[in-house]
């Protein structure tokens, strides 16, 4: 490949966050965009994700906040004339868009090269039947399957292979799930859904391999055909539960070297035969009885498993891929000096275990089925890292931040025997406690392995957890019991619960008895070489590797798992905070356990702790780092209060948000910032009713800036009033001052902390990061010193609009009562702009056409 010719590349982003799109794409974009720019190649980015970090802060040379449609992309390509297009950073919908660009000859007419893949690969990704045929040609085993265009054809397949079967959509316009069908009713329903989302109105019916082990392998390949494995991962749950909804371990836990090498070889072979450049994720099903395997899916674009592989190994995956896509070989990749020279070429090895655990939207969307099946329902995930399977699992469960996962306190003891067996056979979300309870009631390991198709290995590990817990209960304030429990992942809180004692007392007891936490680096060579990833996890061993960071240390508490709701943009806020803290010569240290989070990417924070957020976990980090300041954001108000009460300097970023949709009749609001002494106005915003929007974009629409003369005059008149009301809060920060119309005149209604959505909207509309401004006033700087790059709002040309997106389609919620579009259900936010409000709303409605059905 001639990379001399490459001067400008186009990257298409993933759009708003959603189920299956948890930020991993934006995380990849920030790293790949900046790495490619460093190689002297200009980057043009198109995205409509309001919370894209890559779309701010100069991660790209030019950013288009445009709808992700073939039409919009065609216009951008014609204007920008990029040399090439990177297809792998926006998930399946980007691949669909590229297929559209190819079909319309947009790439050909503008001489845009497709990097990484051949056009054939695009077709194979969009149409799994083509992929399946290709895999057969290269003699990789695939499941017997057939494309059908009608129910009659599907039933003909059933007559041949029998139930159960899996149905998936051909050329789905969404990241469509595979549906397991046990009977005719299931099949009819799955076909109806599958035909609906299929661009070609076809479905694939395939033989079911439910109950097999599911393995996931991630590898990289360069243009010179050098390829290496990044990580092998194993699903705790068998095939039949969507891998996004499954607990996943890295490295593999229960397969032999022969099986492992079989998958490694197959993964590299697929990459070579398909001539894929970059990273690729291959999913396999393994029959544990015969060692026979099938290739389930080939994913050569960034996804959650690649993000997990990168976080689990410490291998600089995105950075390496950035080089590969523009034609640099693995041997030529230059990494930053904290890595060893040849690290890109070393197959990562782990001396720790990583356990990824999904989190669910059920606390909000009560009517969604809790049944775990082939349809992905988790909205995010967290990882636990430890030196044993038990420790990784317990830390992962803890990091989900849901009290019901508290192993000791929350076992479902009230289930009848029948209920328990039902729950074992038909797994539901959060099943770990059910499995523990079954073991507790004396179910045999072999029996449970047979019922659940979960490898017996895990039941031995769960039994061990129960043993440790029992020992802890029996021996209050016993050094050995506590030491052992902590060694395998329990906390002060767990011990306090078992002993009915005060946590602080347990903590003190542990310290007095030298049960001390140690931190180990997550790096890709298992200690063989010196690598400095500055990423650590806790365990209770001999040697501590984490030294106190030098300089002006601040701790930023990260968001944790992506969740449904008003705070789904929180990771954007945390990432921006880290970025601007670093710019301001602070050493930001992040505590977070979300593998998909943008904030976890290697260069945003100076140092990372991949840890849960239980109080004792946080204290462990604080004991080493002794930061001058701690930042907490929306999610962690109570944690922040606790820390402040314990004497830490805590800056809480906006602590409360309206939970309900604001019922306003198109009433304006004034967006302001204060340093505690002065108030500056960003501009006027308005919330308007989002009538007639696309089905997945709902609720109200935020508009900024409002340039209406009358309103601006009114606000000017109210300026003094606004200032007084905002200053009355006495706290530097961002506020939204709502106005109402009373007696035909605008009046102040209420003042509330600005939402993250509004922060993102103003930042994108003004080109000036509101997070940066917030940070500096929170750090005590006067407004006069920080507002220098905020533009004159009256000169801001386009009108920006922003609306939430909802996962109802993915979760198969069609019940009108539940499909409310209230902010608490949102998973993402889209942004658009136009010269007029009308054209902006049109653009908003055009975005992500393929998720609309």
């Amino acid at each position, binding site marked *: 490949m001639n990379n001399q010719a490459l001067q400008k590349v186009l990257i298409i982003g993933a759009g708003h966050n959603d189920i299956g799109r948890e930020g991993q794409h934006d995380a990849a974009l920030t790293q790949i965009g900046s790495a490619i720019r460093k190689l002297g190649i200009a980057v043009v980015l198109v995205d409509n994700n309001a919370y894209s970090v890559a779309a701010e802060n100069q991660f790209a040379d030019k950013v288009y906040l445009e709808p992700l449609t073939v039409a919009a992309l065609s216009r951008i390509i014609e204007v920008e004339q990029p040399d090439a297009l990177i297809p792998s950073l926006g998930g399946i919908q980007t691949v669909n868009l590229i297929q559209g660009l190819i079909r319309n000859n947009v790439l050909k007419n503008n001489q845009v090269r497709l990097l990484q893949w051949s056009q054939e690969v695009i077709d194979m990704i969009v149409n799994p039947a083509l992929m399946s045929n290709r895999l057969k040609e290269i003699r990789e085993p695939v499941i017997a399957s057939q494309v059908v265009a009608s129910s009659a054809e599907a039933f003909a397949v059933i007559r041949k292979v029998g139930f159960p079967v899996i149905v998936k959509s051909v050329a789905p316009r969404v990241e469509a799930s595979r549906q397991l069908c046990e009977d005719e009713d299931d099949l009819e329903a799955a076909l109806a859904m599958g035909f609906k989302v299929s661009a070609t109105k076809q479905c694939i019916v395939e033989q079911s391999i439910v109950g097999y082990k599911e393995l996931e392998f991630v590898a990289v390949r360069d243009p*010179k*055909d*050098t390829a*290496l494995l990044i990580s*092998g991962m194993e699903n705790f749950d068998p095939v039949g539960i969507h891998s996004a909804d499954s607990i996943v371990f890295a*490295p*593999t*836990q*229960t*397969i*032999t*070297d*022969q099986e*492992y*090498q079989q998958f*490694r*070889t197959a993964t*590299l072979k697929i990459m070579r035969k398909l001539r894929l450049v970059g990273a690729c994720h291959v999913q396999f099903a393994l029959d*544990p*009885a015969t060692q026979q395997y099938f290739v389930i899916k080939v994913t050569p674009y960034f996804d959650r498993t690649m993000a997990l592989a990168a976080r689990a190994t410490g291998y600089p995956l995105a950075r390496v891929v950035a080089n590969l896509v523009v034609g640099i070989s*693995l*041997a030529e990749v230059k990494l930053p000096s904290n890595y060893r020279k*040849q690290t890109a*070429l*070393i*197959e*990562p*090895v*782990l*001396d*720790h*275990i990583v356990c990824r655990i999904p989190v669910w939207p059920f606390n909000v969307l009560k009517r969604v089925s809790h049944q775990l099946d082939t349809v992905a329902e988790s909205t995010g995930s967290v990882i636990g890292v430890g*030196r*044993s*399977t038990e420790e990784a699992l317990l830390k992962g469960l803890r990091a989900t931040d849901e009290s019901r996962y508290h192993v000791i306190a929350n076992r479902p003891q009230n289930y009848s025997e029948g209920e328990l067996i039902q729950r074992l056979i038909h797994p539901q979300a959060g099943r770990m406690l059910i499995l523990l309870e079954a073991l507790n009631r004396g179910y045999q390991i072999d029996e449970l*392995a047979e019922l659940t198709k979960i*490898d*017996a*290995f895990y039941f*031995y*590990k769960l039994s061990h957890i129960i043993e440790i817990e029992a020992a802890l209960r029996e021996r209050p304030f016993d050094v050995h019991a506590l030491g052992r429990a902590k*060694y395998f992942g329990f906390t002060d809180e767990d011990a306090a619960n078992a002993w009915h004692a005060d946590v602080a007392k347990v903590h003190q007891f542990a310290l007095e008895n030298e049960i001390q936490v140690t931190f*180990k680096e997550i790096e890709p*060579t*298992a*200690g*063989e*070489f010196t690598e400095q990833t500055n990423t650590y996890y806790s365990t209770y*061993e*001999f*040697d501590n590797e984490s030294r106190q960071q030098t300089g002006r240390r601040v701790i930023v508490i990260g968001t944790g798992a992506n969740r449904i709701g008003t705070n789904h943009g929180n990771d954007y806020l945390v990432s921006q905070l880290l970025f601007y803290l670093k710019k301001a010569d602070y050493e930001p240290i992040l505590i977070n356990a979300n593998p998909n989070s943008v904030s976890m990417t290697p260069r945003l924070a100076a140092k990372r702790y991949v840890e849960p957020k239980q109080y004792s976990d946080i204290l462990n980090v604080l004991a080493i780092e002794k930061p001058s300041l701690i930042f907490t954001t929306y999610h962690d108000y109570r944690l922040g209060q606790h820390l402040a009460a314990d004497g830490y300097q805590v800056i809480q970023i906006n602590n409360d948000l309206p939970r309900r949709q604001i019922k306003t009749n198109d009433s304006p609001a004034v967006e302001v910032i204060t340093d505690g002494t002065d108030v500056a106005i960003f501009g006027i915003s308005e919330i308007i009713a989002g009538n007639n929007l696309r089905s997945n974009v709902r609720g109200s629409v935020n508009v900024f800036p409002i340039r209406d003369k009358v309103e601006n005059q009114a606000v000017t008149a109210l300026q003094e009033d606004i200032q007084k009301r905002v200053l009355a809060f006495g706290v530097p920060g961002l506020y939204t001052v709502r106005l109402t119309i009373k007696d035909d005149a605008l009046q102040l209604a209420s003042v509330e902390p600005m939402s993250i959505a509004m922060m993102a909207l103003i930042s994108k509309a003004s080109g000036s990061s509101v997070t940066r401004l917030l940070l500096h006033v929170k750090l005590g700087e006067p407004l006069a010193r920080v507002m220098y790059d905020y533009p004159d709002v009256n000169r801001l040309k386009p009108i920006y609009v922003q609306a939430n997106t909802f996962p109802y389609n993915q979760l198969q919620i069609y019940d009108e009562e539940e499909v409310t579009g209230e902010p608490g259900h949102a998973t993402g936010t889209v942004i658009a702009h136009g010269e007029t409000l009308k054209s902006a709303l049109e653009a908003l409605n055009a975005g992500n056409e393929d998720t609309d059905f």
Partner: protein
Amino acid sequence: MADRYLILEDGSVYLGEGFGSPAVSTGEIVFNTSMTGYQEIITNQIYHNQIIAFTQPTIGSYGINHDSYESILPTVKGVVVRDVASISTNRQRRWSLDQYLKQQNIPGISHIDTRHLAKQLRASGPMKASIVDVADAHAFDQLGATVLTNQQVAAVATPKPFPNPGTGLNVVVVDFGLKHGILRELSKRRCNVTVLPYTATTEEIINLDPDGVVLSTGPGKPQDLPASVLTMIQNIQNRIPLFAIGLGHELFAMANGAQIMKLAPEHHGANHPIREVITNQIIYASQGQGFVVDPDTVDRDKLITTFVDLIDGTIQGLRFRDFPAFSVQFFPDGAPGPIEARDVFDEFVESMQQARGPVW
């Protein structure tokens, strides 16, 4: 399980929990970074008299498999891990690792900070170490006084010839403590194999009329072997196609005038990029080496370098310019580890076929 200690000759003490045999045992400790294949590694005779520390944190998760042995009897002196899963969940359901090590009289120790240990050994190189019940002065005295044998090959190589019949090419494997993977790969290629003791003479080999000769892997320092081995290699290499692996490769280099030196840090893992010089392809293969060919002493008129480790530039393969004789330092049979280097066995078969001429 009982508290036990891992003690090192530099005075370090690691407290852990015993598993496997309760025996007290002393050996040279090395760390291995392979992610899979604990059984293959434990049964590989290159680790004779050594204590293996695994950096992979959980060992034993599927027990012991009938088809994962690399020798009939393991002769390692100990197994050091962070966490042992003493269970058997493999489909054969034979033995757990714990039971197996008990049978084989090999002590294991778990709950060790193996990451710290690996970093220590990375800096120090291999050391003498013991797994003991009490870490007192007496234990250290014993450790200090223990002289580890330098006769590892004699201890593990077959004392008597044995066949591994096949219907294809006739191959003699000279056994220095071979890995079963070598026989497995030759069997797959239908070779009719006779395994001879490492003391086999040129005449004994020639008498079997082989199409090719393999010098196997094995433990220890190549200089500790009798000079007669080198004479044998010198006599064979220009008459019969020769393929040497691991220790065999080191002996092949020595027979052609090269010096062998200690390698620091050693290679025990399966993740180093290795460049094949002629194709410029990068491959991955299992390695277990404490010694290396000194590149400055290789007679370039005679030998060419075929493979190079890209991490430290060490020679990983040699080839005779004039005869079909070649060698690799790594383990091309995998078991455990990547299997992409297995085609060097095909190369060997081709060289034998060519040497036999068109008749075959």
